[in-house]
């Protein structure tokens, strides 16, 4: 049984609330299978430095409609790998200063090992496929960060994320 599609995905310019997401995601597995015995969460934050340069602030840009579909795909993948798990993914956009959260991920499962795995899998997949871009503004300049060539159909990338999650 896949309970996972009920959990929350969002792209928002508002500050992220981990507690709100935890309540939602936990509720998705509370009454299914063994119930919810573990919640693991991840917050990605704006770091003060990047490769030795002082960060003033970041701007995140997203293709909102497509990002939501990428997050739903990640939910479905996690649901296939870890039945009776639930996953919430929320990404922030706009200007963020040092210490603010850019992404919140919450995984709920019956037991703790799977909760950590789902959470780690989800952030690795977000990094691989989410159509979101980070623009860094430093004391001495600015730069777009360009990482993965997004390809949600790339099974090798998906397999790499799974290996990292289960290490």
């Amino acid at each position, binding site marked *: 049984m896949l309970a996972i599609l009920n959990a929350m995905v969002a792209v928002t310019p508002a500050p992220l609330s981990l507690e709100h997401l935890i309540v939602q995601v936990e509720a998705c597995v509370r009454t299914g299978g063994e119930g919810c015995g573990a919640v693991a969460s991840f917050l990605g934050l704006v770091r003060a430095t990047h490769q030795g340069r002082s960060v003033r602030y970041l701007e995140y*840009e997203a293709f909102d409609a497509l990002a939501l579909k990428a997050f739903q795909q990640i939910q479905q993948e996690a649901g296939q790998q870890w039945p009776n798990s639930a996953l919430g993914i929320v990404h922030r956009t706009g200007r963020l200063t040092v210490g603010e959260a850019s992404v919140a991920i919450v995984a709920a499962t019956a037991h703790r090992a799977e909760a950590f795995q789902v959470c780690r899998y989800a952030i690795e997949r977000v*990094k691989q*496929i989410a*159509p979101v*871009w980070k623009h860094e503004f430093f004391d001495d300049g600015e730069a*777009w960060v*360009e990482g993965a*060539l997004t390809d949600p*159909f790339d099974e090798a990338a998906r397999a790499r994320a799974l290996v990292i999650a289960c290490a």
Partner: protein
Amino acid sequence: MRITVRLFARLRELAGTETLAVDLLEPATVADAWRATVAVAPALAPFDRAISCAVNANFSRMSHPVAAGDDVAFLPPVSGG
């Protein structure tokens, strides 16, 4: 036929616009839309082998056919998280 091209992040900055109306001869693919976009915005040429695409807000392939009125998005390498 006319389609809309949507550009993100550095592609948007290099082209100086978020959207472009592009005219293509039928039949056409996403790759044709990219070539037409680069013809209008040559600064995008270095991204030739480093873009992904979406058609009507669904992940797609460069070989995918496009139809009149489609919304074709080009995505530079991503950096979310």
